[in-house]
């Protein structure tokens, strides 16, 4: 109480603090001690909250691993569902995903990457903002709506569920992801590199291809991989399009085709333990693949940031 406030400092001239004055001002007391306690309390709370956020991920991983590892056997990987009765494997789903996702990628990458090139390199402020906004909205559209949308113009006219429609639906999901990540990657390419290239007399198209896209390639690949991982796990857009099938469909995109998420959905809802186990096995397989892609991509960019 005797300290600071009590003695108003003279405006000028010497001032000699009494011995111990300064020490008293800076030592912990009353308020300071309470602040320390509050600090420790809030830190603990924040830590608990962040751990809680990790629980679902850990839970899903552990649950699927435990339940699925046992069911993930050679039969599941190499056999289709039995024609009669119960058993067999998920080959129809594996083969289906391995066809529909690549086709979707082939459709989505050019559209997404070229769209991003337009937005980042050529578009004016306005058109770029419009495309960017549309892409962001599309990311937020519930995937079942995309399924219905594709259903109306690629299934209804032919009166036939087909794998091509499934691929298109997955591509619609992928395009905005690819576009936005590519655009961000291109924005990170320094303008000085474009200038250097143009100043050498390199045409604009060649500059975009060999300098801008080439320099942004790691980021573009990251976006593509994340989009692929996303498409692999989508169920809703396929319900109305590829439909799913108990038969192993190789190459016939005009007919229904199965996919891992569809397989999981179907088998998990059956009143049969063997089928349920197959669903767990397929879920584990899907998780492994998607996780591998994510770890690969993130690990790479993580390593780059450190290195």
């Amino acid at each position: 109480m005797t300290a600071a406030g009590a003695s108003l400092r003279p405006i000028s001239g010497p001032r000699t603090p009494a011995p111990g004055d300064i020490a008293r001002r800076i030592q912990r007391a009353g308020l300071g001690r309470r602040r320390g306690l509050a600090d420790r309390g809030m830190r603990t709370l924040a830590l608990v909250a962040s751990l809680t956020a990790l629980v679902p991920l850990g839970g899903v991983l552990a649950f699927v691993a435990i339940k699925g590892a046992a069911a993930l056997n050679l039969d599941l990987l190499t056999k289709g569902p039995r024609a009669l009765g119960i058993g067999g494997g998920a080959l129809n789903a594996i083969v289906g995903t391995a066809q529909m996702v690549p086709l979707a990628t082939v459709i989505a990458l050019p559209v997404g990457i070229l769209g991003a090139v337009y937005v980042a390199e050529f578009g004016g402020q306005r058109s770029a903002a419009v495309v960017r906004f549309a892409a962001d909205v599309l990311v937020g559209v519930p995937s079942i709506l995309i399924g219905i949308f594709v259903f109306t113009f690629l299934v209804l006219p032919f009166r036939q569920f087909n794998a091509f429609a499934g691929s298109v639906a997955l591509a619609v999901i992928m395009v905005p992801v690819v576009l936005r990540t590519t655009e961000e990657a291109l924005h990170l390419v320094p303008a000085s590199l474009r200038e250097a290239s143009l100043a050498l007399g390199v045409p604009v198209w060649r500059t975009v291809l060999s300098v801008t896209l080439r320099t942004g390639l790691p980021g573009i690949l990251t976006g593509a991989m994340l989009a692929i991982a996303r498409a692999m796990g989508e169920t809703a857009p396929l319900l109305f399009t590829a439909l799913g099938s108990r038969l192993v469909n190789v190459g016939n995109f005009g007919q229904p085709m199965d996919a891992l998420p569809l397989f999981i959905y179907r088998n998990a809802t059956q009143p049969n333990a063997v089928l349920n186990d197959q669903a767990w096995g397929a879920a584990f397989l899907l998780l492994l693949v998607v996780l591998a892609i994510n770890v690969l991509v993130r690990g790479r960019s993580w390593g780059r940031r450190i290195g």
Partner: protein
Amino acid sequence: MMTVDVLPPPTETDPDPPIERPASEPVGPLGESPPSRSASPDTAASGQIEVESLNAFYGPFRAIRDVSLRLEPQAVTAIIGPSGCGKSTFLRSLNRMHELAPGARIEGRVRLDGLDIYDPSVDPVQLRRVVGMVFQRPNPFPTMSIFDNVAAGLRLTGRLPKARLHEVVERSLRRAALWDEVKDKLRANGTSLSGGQQQRLCIARALAVDPEVLLMDEPAAALDPIATLRIEELIAELRRTYTIVIVTHNMQQASRISDRTAFFTMGTDRAGYLVEVGDTAKIFTNPSESLTEDYVSGRFG
């Protein structure tokens, strides 16, 4: 194609110290007699740039007003002046890089060997192969090796047999005084070099497409004094072959390396204009304009 075949032979390591230039060069009145017209008669006339009432705009903003001057071949012209006076814009209007900015446009004429580079018949992409540019910050392509950086201009603009490519890359690196330092690591990444080496790499890259004119936008501003010295030595060497225009903030540098100096400043409407151009010795010792004298003596700017 037009490239390589006319590329002059690599200069052997020259015994004479390149920076010390004989003081005997003609110091004539404005715009007269470019120094030391040696060499073959056919190169003597080529590479001259005549700028005639040049105005450059960014949208409604006029960045430079009514600039007229001549840039001589086989000489270094330094552009000096305070920040924002349009030096870089002027430089970029000489290889039509200016027009790449949104809303940018040009009025007036720039004649290279008599041909207006803004004539509709001129292809800006081809023009930039003849009028090369080096930037303030070294900007090698980070995805390319040292070799590929130098080869980039040739690879990306046309086809060249592999053997020729090797030859041109080595020549260009020799001309840029970088060969001895990188000849054993041509496959290393261009960005692994030091800043000064990177800048010489960028110069080699610009030389590889065989330009006649070399525009340099503060090429040593991001470098330490020793790297700067090497760039200046290099410019003195290149001066024999090319028309060199260099923007610099460093007046000592301008007086050291240039034959002629153009002083720009900014008007009340923030448009840059040319105050005076002449032989460097005159500009720095006995300028005609008091504005120039104030600037070079450090009283303003």
